Each structure stands twice: as C-alpha cells, then as structure tokens.
C-alpha cells in the first residue's frame, strides 16, 4: 500500500486486518518484521520552511535528498548528519525523512549537536488503530504536554506511522577542517579524541579507523583556523590538516561506514563509553571504526559473534546487529523496562499490527 495523504494512510491502518510492515524507503530497516508493506513515500513535500527561524516542517515520506536540496538552497542543513547506510547494508531505495527519525539515524556530529531526536520539534503520526495524533510543533521551545516526539524518534514504526516531522535546522558553516592524526596506537589515538572533545574548541567530529584519528571543527574561517591550531597542540601524533571538500568526503565515509561496505561478515553498532571503547573492541576482535570519540563503535566480525559481543558490552552500553544472520538484532531490555515497552505497544497498537516482531 502506498497512500498519498495522511487521511488515506489513517484509513489504511484502521482498515488493516493483517500485520503491516511500515516502510519509508527501506534503506535502514532492521529486524525481522513481517506483513503487508505500507510505504510512506507517497506523503511527500515541504509544508513549511522558515530559514530565518531555522525551522522545517516536511511530510514524512519526503526523500532525504530532497530535504537536503531544499535546505542547501538557503545555505542550511540538517545538523545531525544523516547516515546513508545503503552501501553498508546492501540496500537500494530512497531514504525518507520519516524513516530517518523513526531510526533516530545520526552521524558524527552527534557529539556536538545531538541526534535526530534532539533536532526534532514535532511529529504527526497515525497510531495502530488509525487515529491521527500530533505532538510537539514547529517552535524550538515547547514543553506543552508529554514529549511524544522523543518517544516516536527511534521507535521504528512500532508505536505509529509518522506522517509529518518538524526539525530545527542549522546554517551551513563557512569553513570546515579536519586534523588527521597518525603515528598513535589505538589507546593513544582514542585518548587524543577524548582530549579534543574535552577541550573548549567545539569539536564537531571525533573518529578513528585504519590507524588514523580524525578531529573536525566547523564554523567561521578565522575561528576554524584558530581552533585547528589549538587542537593540533593538544592531540599529539603526526598531524596533517584536511580542509573543505576533502574533509567533507572523509566524514561522509565515517558517517556511512563506507570502509565496511561490500565486505563479508557481521556488522555491529555498539554504543558505549568512550573510555570503554578500546576494551570492548579488543574483546570482540575483528575490525573497528570508532566514532563519537569512541562512544560509537562499528565492528566488522565473522558471523555468529552475538554472544561474544553481548558479553563484551555488558554493563558498558549496548549493541545492535546491523547486518548479519544471527541475533537478536536489538539488545534485550531489563525486565522492568521491557514491561513498560510492552505496555506502550499494547496501548498505541492494541492489535499488534505495526512492524510486529521488529524490535523483538
């Protein structure tokens, strides 16, 4: 099914007698949900864009590329750097903005500006019974009622189908530059990322892979030059500076996990503490890409490493199986949290038809 209005979508959900597989562009779907495909890509288009107020309201099925084009025309962007995981996951399709929020998909700049959920100002969605719900709005400060915007962000369609999303957007920076640090082992290379993030120099990216660490700053040209200079003294190692488009490409590769695309094996996405990054990686083995100063680890391993990964992150974060046959895909919740999650699913989707089985 591919409704083209919110009303049609609501009717489709209300009238559904079988489970539905909710899908934006299908470029970042995880897990094993089954059902008739309900696509949101028919709900497309910008509802409202006020560059002077940094606010964008857009229908959920709008292509991310279209959103980025509209913003770029006003020299603005989505602050949280939407990852394009098609290469990594071996998917085709057109990523939608609703899918991005439903997956809370966020890139390297999360260390500076937060995730998709932090930029989200409002949502409209259709719940499991076909009722249209709105929450939040288009203004940056809003504490009116409960924040269901955050609840919907990252809910992967389990509580409702997003039909409209509003975001706070960001001005494109005048300049960007990246310190490329070589000659440090993983322990020292990760420590240099933590030192950069603990400095007042407003780092917008801190990552490491293939024996090199990367630290990014963005902003006005004079300020970028100043902060690069100060950070160079702080991080150690052998430093070169990459600017402009070369820096942009470097971060797109980290954002999209390009080094693992097309290579055999399982891919895990691990969220942990920066100081635990090296220990977790060493225990799992395989190859690692560290982002968020070590707080995010992408791991490429042989197949069937689920138990080993779970043991490595126990008490230090959590791991999601992004690509591979094993499972579980999503980590199990503590029983008292699982009870809350089950209660919410029961109330937002009493018939249990939305993305059944996706999040376990």
């Amino acid at each position, binding site marked *: 099914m591919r409704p083209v209005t919110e009303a049609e979508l609501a009717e489709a959900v209300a009238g559904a007698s079988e489970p539905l597989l909710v899908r934006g562009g299908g470029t970042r779907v995880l897990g094993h949900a089954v059902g008739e495909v309900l696509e949101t890509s028919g709900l497309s288009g910008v509802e409202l864009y006020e560059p002077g107020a940094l606010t964008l309201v857009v229908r959920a099925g709008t292509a991310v590329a279209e959103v980025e084009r509209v913003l770029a025309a006003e020299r603005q962007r989505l602050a949280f750097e939407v990852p394009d995981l098609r290469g990594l996951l071996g998917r085709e399709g057109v990523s939608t903005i609703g899918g991005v929020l439903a997956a809370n998909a966020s890139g390297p700049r999360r260390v500076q500006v937060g995730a998709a959920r932090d930029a989200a100002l409002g949502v409209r969605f259709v719940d499991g019974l076909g009722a249209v719900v709105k929450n939040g709005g288009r203004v940056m400060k809003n504490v009116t*009622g409960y924040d269901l915007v955050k609840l919907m962000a990252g809910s992967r369609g389990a509580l409702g189908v997003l039909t409209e999303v509003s975001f706070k957007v960001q001005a494109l920076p005048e300049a960007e530059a990246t310190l490329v640090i070589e000659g440090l082992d993983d322990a020292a290379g990760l420590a240099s990322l933590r030192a950069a993030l603990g400095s007042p120099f407003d780092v917008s990216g801190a990552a490491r892979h293939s024996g090199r660490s990367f630290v990014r700053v963005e902003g006005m040209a004079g300020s970028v030059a100043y902060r690069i200079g100060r950070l160079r003294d702080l991080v150690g190692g052998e430093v070169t500076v990459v600017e402009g488009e070369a820096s942009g490409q470097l971060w797109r590769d980290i954002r999209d996990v390009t080094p693992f695309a097309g290579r055999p094996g399982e891919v895990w996405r691990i969220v942990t503490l920066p100081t635990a990054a090296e220990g977790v990686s060493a225990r799992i083995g395989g190859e690692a890409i560290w982002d968020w100063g070590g707080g995010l680890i992408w791991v490429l391993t042989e197949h069937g490493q689920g138990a080993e990964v779970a043991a490595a992150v126990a008490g230090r974060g959590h791991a999601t199986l992004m690509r591979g046959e094993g499972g579980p895909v999503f980590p199990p919740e503590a029983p008292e949290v699982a009870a809350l999650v089950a209660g919410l699913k029961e109330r937002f989707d009493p018939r249990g038809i939305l993305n059944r089985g996706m999040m376990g």
Partner: protein
Amino acid sequence: MDMPVPDGGVIARKGRIVSRLRTVLPGDAVIDAPEELRVYECDALTAYRCVPLAAVLPRTTEEVSAVLQICSEEGVPVVPRGSGTSLAGGAMPSADAVILGVARMNEVLETDYANRFIRVQSGRTNLSVSGAVEAEGFFYAPDPSSQLACAIAGNIAMNSGGAHCLKYGVTTNNLLGVRMVKMDGTVVTLGGPWGEPAGLDLLGVVCGSEGQLGVVTEAWLRILPKPEGARPVLVGFNSNEVAGACVAGIIRAGILPVAIEFMDRPCIRATEAFAKAGYPDCEALLIIEVEGSEAEIVEQLARIRAIAMAHDPVEFREAADEDQARRIWLGRKSAFGAMGQINDYMCLDGTIPVSSLPHVLKRIGEMSREFGLDVGNVFHAGDGNMHPLILFDANKPVDLEKCEAFGAEILKLCVEVGGCLTGEHGVGIEKRDLMAVQFSATDMEAQMRVKDVFDPKWLLNPAKVFPLASSAARRVG
C-alpha cells in the same frame, strides 16, 4: 482553580498512613504536623495553596521506593517536589496527597571528565551541578533563571530551558539517563552514561512529564567544557518589527549566538527605574551574547554589528570589559524583580514562531488596553519563547480573574500563530485547562496512555497537565 475533591477515606486514614511511612523513613523525614506542612502548601505559583496530608523527605532511591509502595497500597496520591520553584503549580499538593520532597538527596555520585558526564542525586540544585565540575573547566548547560534554587528533579520534570539554550538545548538535550521509581515502587533505569537508548526512548518521554510518570532519584547529565570567553552586546531599536528582523538576519547569516534576549519598552522602563542599568529608552532592546576565544568573539561581534547597523539601531553597545558586560545583563536579569516592584505579576511563557513577533506584540498591546492591565515583554528571541509579565493587584480578586483571562488570551494567540502554551515552565495546574486549545482529544488521549502504562492508578501528581474533565475517568480508577 478547580481541583478534584480530596479522598475523604485517605484523609480519615492519615494516622495509619503516617505511621506506615515512619516504618520506612527516619523520624525527622516524615512531616505530619499541620503547621510544619504549611511550607509545602504551594510552589512559586503562590496564588493557589493547599496544605498536604503529609510530607516525606527520603535520602535514597530505596527509601523513595518504600514510600511509593506504601502510598500505592494505601491509594494515596503523591506529589513529587524538587525545590518548589515551579511557576505553573507543578508541585502544588491536594489535601489527600503526600508531598515527596527530594531536597535531602543532593549528593554528587560520580564525575567522569573523560566521558563528560556527572551522576547526581536529583535533589541537587542546578547551579551546584556546574559548581561541582567548574574547577575542571566544565559546566552543565541548561540555566533556568531559578538555577540557584531549582533542583535537577524539577528540571527533568519540566524539561527546563534557560537563556543559553539557543546553542546548548534544554534539559532533554543534556540528560543522558535516570534512575527512577514508579508509583508502585519499582526502580527502573532509563538511558545511561552513554546517552543513546537501545530501544524506545523512554527517557525522552519521562523528561518533561511533570512528575507524572515516576520519581527521578538519580540522573546522568552531560557536562561540557567551558568556552574560553563570552561577551554580550546591547542593541536598541525604535520598532519591534525591526528588532525582529535583526534577529532573523543574524540567524540567517549563520551566526549562532548563545543567547538573544528581547525586552520591550514597558519592560525597559521598569527595569531602568529599578536597576539603573543604563539602558536606552527605546521601543525594543536586544541583548546578544557570543562565545569563544577573544578573536572569535571579535569576529562574531563584527558580523552582528554589520547586520544590526543595516537595521538602523538607536544604540549599539559592546561590552568593553567585565563590568560593562555585567551591566548589560543587569537589567535583563532584574526584569522580573523590577516588574514585581510595580505590582504583582503573572509570568507566562508561550512560544511563537519568531516571524510572528511583531504581530503578537501588537495584539498583546491591544489586549492590554482591553483588559486594563499593563504588560511588559521579555523574550528569548532566538527561540521564540515569550515571557509576558502581566501586572495586577493580588489584593483585588477581580484583578486576578482579569489577569488570568488576559493570560489565557495571550496563550491562545501563541497557539493560533503556530506556537505553544508553554516553552519552559510546564503546564502544571496553571495551563491545564488550556491544553484543549493546542491539542485535540486524540492528541491528549495519546499522552494519557503513556501515564496509564507508568502509573495505572493515576496516583502520581494526578490533577496536573490534562484538563480535569479529560482525565476524570482515569483518576477515579
């Protein structure tokens, strides 16, 4: 203000309830003498008062759990209280309710600079969180004006903001995880020091739920390295419209000040008479603060100056030193006190799209004449969060009524232009009955479902946030 009829059965069982609470808490942590309970009869919304059944002051998560379990078994409503600074009546009790104050839970449990977080007990005050990490060059970003007194528990309950959230976000953007006790006594951990949840973002909906989903006892908070420096400028204009255009111009140019504050003429005059900060007598005044190294500050201010000059300001004043910077902020920080010198006031905090500013200020001016009450406007201009201060005489009941009616009209206007009822203070009891202006019955039903899951008996801070009529059926169950 309508409140539900207190449960006579609960009040009749006060003796038994208090003695059960004394079995799980030290003697001085259970307060039941009516004269001692007067302290808890209201929060900073002082127009409404009610002495609670009892108050408890636990010191640990385990004590909170034991208290809630007893209250749950006894069917006693519980009203959580941070420092009692809510302007919306979020901590206002009812006669059958136990106040659960977290004031004694104020320890720092862990500081971790390498991973940039601090874990505190929730009764710790906002400013003392920054105080605990200041020596290492860090700070906690959300800075509500009550930060000297307000507790992290209340900040989380109301998702508090502050003057500097244009750059750093509000509480929800700086909160990594909580330990929380549900009404039935179950302890849950949501989120954690790593920040991102594995599954549903339950932390995201707990933050801002006004103490209705659980009692937060501990929190992991993001701490940030302090910027090298900061400096404000003051810009005066002879029209609200032009001031608004200047704000949009700055944002469009890609400059992100940490704060853009706006004051209108009535407010400027009142603060000038009170604080003598040396503000120009003009229609609208902006205070814009930027951060960074000396060179970065100079670069940003030069650009702001160029944009401001294109809008023909009556004044552009840069702070040459610390003292001048302090004086620029002095008037703004004294604004509420200054208005309070003139009369009693009611402070609203609806948010509007920045582009609607001139229209909304014009309408507020017209309404001020219609209602016969003066109003001054202070405004977080960068994010559209208004703070109209309506002056009235609390000794005249008819004035309070008029003031509330005027306030309601302003908030309806905020919603009408695409904004919301409250940007940082919360709904509490104050704006409860206006929720239907912003939300449909279905919208509110979706929110109340969340409370059904966390607190099926609706005992936790029950008569807040939702219009009494819409929550009635649930509160009875």
